[in-house]
């Protein structure tokens, strides 16, 4: 899979959803994802995302691990409960190997430690899309 292939695709746009309580992330990450050619939606909480109509259109989820209310881990579990197999890329500012291992075991695509490079993100997205 290459950028060219994605961009030339006539198929439905690939929707990447960003869920993070941090405003700076919601501000910066969508722009980069758009540069990658994805349609991007951003939510400040897991509840907000679940309440939206975007769940079914989501190709990939970029999810903050620690948030007030429902955490990234909770959302992962909830989606699993609902039978939604959306690939998830976790992003977190805290390095915690045990949690990383746990979410990967639960089927997460990758865990990116903030700050992460655009290549690391691109790689994770490719992995997510490839599995799709």
């Amino acid at each position, binding site marked *: 899979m290459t950028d060219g292939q994605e961009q030339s695709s006539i198929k439905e746009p690939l929707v990447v959803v960003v869920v993070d309580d941090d405003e700076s992330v919601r*501000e910066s990450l969508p722009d980069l994802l758009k540069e990658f050619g994805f349609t991007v939606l951003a939510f400040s909480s897991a509840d907000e995302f679940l309440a939206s109509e975007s769940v079914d259109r989501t190709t990939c989820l970029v999810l903050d691990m620690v948030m*007030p209310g429902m955490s990234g881990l909770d959302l992962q579990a909830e989606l699993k409960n609902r039978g939604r197999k959306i690939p998830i890329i976790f992003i977190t500012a805290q390095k915690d190997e045990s949690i990383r291992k746990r979410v990967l075991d639960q089927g997460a695509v990758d865990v990116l430690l903030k700050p992460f490079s655009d290549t690391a993100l691109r790689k994770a997205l490719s992995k997510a899309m490839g599995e799709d």
Partner: protein
Amino acid sequence: MPAQPENPAEEVRHLRRCISDLVSVLALPATWTGGRPSQILGNSLDALVSMLSLDFVYARLKDSTVTSFTEMVRVGASWESKPQPEDFGEKLQPWLEGDFQKLPAVATDFFGKPAITLVSLQLGLHAEIGVLVAGSQRSSFPQQTEKLVLNIAANQAAIGLQESSLLSAQTRVASDLGERVAQRAAELAATNEVLRKEIAERKIVEERLRREEAELRRSEAYKAAVLDSSLDCIVAMDHEGRITEFNPAAERTFGYQRDDAIGKHLGDVIVPAHLREKHRAGFARHVATGESRVLGKRTEMTALCADGKEIPVEIAITRIAEDGPPSFTGFLRDITERKRSQDALLEAHEKLARSEERWRLVFENSAVGVTLADFDTRLLAANPVFQKMVGYTEAELKQLNFLDITVEEDRDSNRMLLQDLIHGKWRQFQIEKRYLRKDGGIIWARVSVSVVARTDRSSGFLLALSEDVTDRRSAEEALDETRSELAHIARLTMLSTLTAAIAHEINQPLSGIVTNASTCLRMLDGNPPNLEGARETARRTIRDGNRASEVTSRLRALFSKKNATFELFDLNDAVREVIALCASELQRNRVVPQSELTPNLPPVLGDRTQIQQVILNLLKNGWDAMSSVENRPRGLLVKTECDEGGGVRLSVKDSGVGIDPEIEKKLFEAFHTTKSDGMGIGLSVSRSIVERHQGRLWAIRNDGPGATFLFSIPPSTNT
């Protein structure tokens, strides 16, 4: 009918006269009503003499007694002298004695009359009333008509006499009866009177008896009440010393039942064996001579109880004067208690004396300084320890007051405390103060001052116990320094243990920088380049770079790496440790911490040190918020409890300045601070830590002054 009349005219005349006589005779009884027998008889005799021209008519009436009789005689005109009826009776006796049925007969020489024909007539059917004899000198006597008149007259007279006799008998019976009735009535009246008097007397007697009885009963009841309710034992005995009364108090005291005691000799019952002989002798002497050593006096003796115990009693014996031999009443009182309290009093006196001696020794040898002062704070006494403490002799101290030996800086506050004490605001106070020694040196003392209240025997004074704590004080000051150092170190430790949390704060803006920079580059690399987008992302990059630089500069010195360790721990224990750690800090800030820790909380799984840093943070926020509070107590309440989700919740409630609505939203933002000396990372870092434990940290405004900060951590199974 009579023999041939001589001529019819004569005969008619004769018959007419006869009829007329009969009518007269028949009419006679009408005049006799109510008459006496003599009247009836006399009347009848008169009528016969005149009607029949008789020479005499004699009547003899039988009396009620057989042996006597009444005679009466009426004579005609032929009689010159009037013979007595008795004479006629005597003359007529031969016919009247015998069978007067032999009549009529002719009597000769009858009171000078040559011959006289006698006719007798019976009065009553069987002459039971009497007999009547009529006599006439006429040879024709009695003619038929005359016999008829005589018979009828005799019948009439007999009826009359019988009636009269009946009447008189009735009258006599009546009168007799009346008399007897009257007599009987009189007797009855007399008897009545006697009876009445007797009854009246008896009534009086009965009334008196009744009164006496009531009096007696009342007296008995009174006596019984006295006997029953008397607290004293009442024992009565007769002249032989036998018990006749033994009241309930006596039963209680001596343990004998009344029924068992009564009839026995007093000496055998309640007099102890060794005193019995003396008792008997004394009693015998009294009976013989009237002398007594115990009568009418209060005497103390020993008495014997049923259980063999001997008890001291007070006894007073009264002699009851009576007709006959005397009796005695004894009033006894168990004085065991009194004896005991007397002994106790004696002992107490001794104790007091010993105690006073002891107190004097305490005063002299006490390890603490003891001073007494009057209510003007003038010193009255000081023990050797205190003298040594302040370097004055007792004599010198007696010229001074409390404030004279207090350092200048403490005088005002000490004076106020003493005034409050003297005015009864409190009974005692305890302070640490500085005494000014005679040599100008200063010592720290821990002083308890109390009021010994005015009593009847004492005017009251102040008692001060002073303990030299100068050494301790120095040590404490050193400790305080150490503490603040420790607090500083603790803060550093806190920050170092917050690495992960702080990393989050730092990495967040770094993440923005990297992302924005990448985007910017991609936008510039585009064909055509997105210059507008690149400019915007570059601007954000610079902004976030500055933000990150601020964070790093503030944390640089404090930043170090430490791995978090998760373990199960008791939140209450963690809270207690934190409170203990900052106790001196709280005290210094005049904060009164209170804790309400719910026992048996579920354990928390997490980094104990980090959670303690959060608690410390919240406490520090609390006391900082109250640093300007002066008009109310600086209360800080730390509470732990189970939350609704099965986890635990901790709250810290202060009474400080509260939360400004304008900054409420920024409360948990990093480096936001309202404090001049703060870093503004406390709440932000705390929130990071709590969130790392899947928990929540928030704040609410109190109903009253101040705010409450809370965090909750879910049950450990979730982590």
